[in-house]
């Protein structure tokens, strides 16, 4: 994979998440992702592989990523003045032909692709409601970047107490449901939505371009399918969860 070096132009810490932006005009579809590395090979061999991160926003000039420091890879990215990226990768959310109101559901760092998705829906004139679930008020701080969003926290320290589904009305009211978050949350959204519903899944990745077969998810009737090329966004009904 070819990686491109991009200087980080803006960095902000919002409630435990890091927001990065760099100059790149795209194009990028909501739900697509980048593979990001701290340094050019071979300057870092631990970790060796790049990390998948969803695009948070793209305003025609600057592109941004939002991430949570989980382990060594994201900790190194958090300190970088310049990162190596390859993008845009994968298949994003399908917003074609949607005219009714949409529900956008994010769990924790799964809020990441919802910002750019909201921007796209606005451009198309499609109304939508955003529902965000977090562990606590600290991580919920990012919700200030989602005006009008309804928030739930597991400990009740912000918004309603419970999961993101506790903050949302019955999902049948919506013409389309889009969600991103931990797999158990996505499985719950799939059960709660009976219409058009798309989920952005998270699996460990090796390459990001279809070559290694690491990132698979089970798809009805097709066995394991690579989420980096056929996803990360899948139609909920096709996932064999």
């Amino acid at each position, binding site marked *: 994979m070819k990686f491109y070096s991009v200087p980080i132009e803006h960095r902000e810490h919002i409630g435990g998440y890091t927001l990065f932006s760099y100059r790149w005009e795209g194009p990028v579809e909501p739900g697509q992702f980048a593979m990001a590395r701290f340094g050019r090979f071979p300057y870092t*061999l631990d*970790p060796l592989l790049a990390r998948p991160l969803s695009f948070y926003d793209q305003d025609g000039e600057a592109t941004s990523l939002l991430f949570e420091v989980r382990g060594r890879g994201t900790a190194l990215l958090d300190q970088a003045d310049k990162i190596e990226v390859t993008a845009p990768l994968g298949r994003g959310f399908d917003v074609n032909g949607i005219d009714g109101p949409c529900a956008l559901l994010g769990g924790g760092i799964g809020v990441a692709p919802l910002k750019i998705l909201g921007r796209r829906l606005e451009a198309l004139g499609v109304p939508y409601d955003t529902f965000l679930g977090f562990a606590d008020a600290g991580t919920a701080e990012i919700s200030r970047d989602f005006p009008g969003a309804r928030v739930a926290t597991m400990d009740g320290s912000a918004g309603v107490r419970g999961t993101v589904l506790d903050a949302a009305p019955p999902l049948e009211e919506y013409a389309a449901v889009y969600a991103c978050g931990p797999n158990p949350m996505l499985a719950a959204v799939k059960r709660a939505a009976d219409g058009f519903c798309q989920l952005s899944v998270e699996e460990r990745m090796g390459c990001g371009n279809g070559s290694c077969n*690491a990132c698979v998810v089970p798809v009805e009737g097709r*066995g*394991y399918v690579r989420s980096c090329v056929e996803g990360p966004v899948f139609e909920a009904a096709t996932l064999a969860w």
Partner: protein
Amino acid sequence: MVVRTSAELAVELCGIPLRTPLIPASGTLAKEALGEARDVYGAMLPKTVTPRPRQGNPPPRVAETPAGMINSIGLQNPGIDRFLEDLDAYDLGVPLLVSVAGDTVAEFVALCGRLADDKRVSAIELNLSCPNVEHGGLTFCAGPASVAEVVAACRKTAPDKPLLAKLTNEGVLGNAVAAEEAGADGLTLINTVPALSVDPWARKALPGGLSGPAIKPVALRAVYEVSATVEIPVVGCGGVSTGTDVAEFMLAGATAVQVGTASFVREPAEILEEFAGYLEKAGSPARQLTGGLRGYQGS
């Protein structure tokens, strides 16, 4: 990306002319990513194919270690029928090698039978690191006898196709000699190294194969010792990530070199470019590097 150089990159492997000594390691280059392979590789080599489609293992399938990755993909592939239907996608105008694996000697033979007269296929790589169901799940690399049995049987079935036996590091010398005596035309050394990753919080283990820069010294040693012992050409594989890595493997005795894990983190064209730079400085054509070491450090 076309690498411009005055260096002579071409080599010959088992009578097959290769424009460059680089070959993608089986299982590390998908059809979707062939764009970056154009003008870089001397031959194509898709993921190992088995007689029937294989689902592979449930995720998670990878874990990381310093300078390496552990994978447990489980040979997910569409099976030989679909594979042959789609094979033209791998035609980049360079020789095509096909990697095969079976659960039994009979399955290896059946696969070689399908490929023996296929004009698109320049050579067959036997992936002998897969479990041999008739021998309690030990791999075909478990010992010289099982290597000899499968290589000899494939040799008979595909008398006119060059056969490369791909071996793991364990017992590599004895297995290499057995493969040569059984009629292999070349060897690919090495497949991934058995390894384990442990997540202490979840208390879960992921057994799999280690690849990447971490295994390079192990692979170099295998190439060095085997190429000093056998007459047939050796293809080096394991952690090749830079142009000097390619030179190191060739000096240690390799005729050509495979690139796997490194292609996930950099563009293979950069590796070729660096290798060309090395050749220009060394004033040597690629084909003259093979086995060109001048003794041990300090001597």
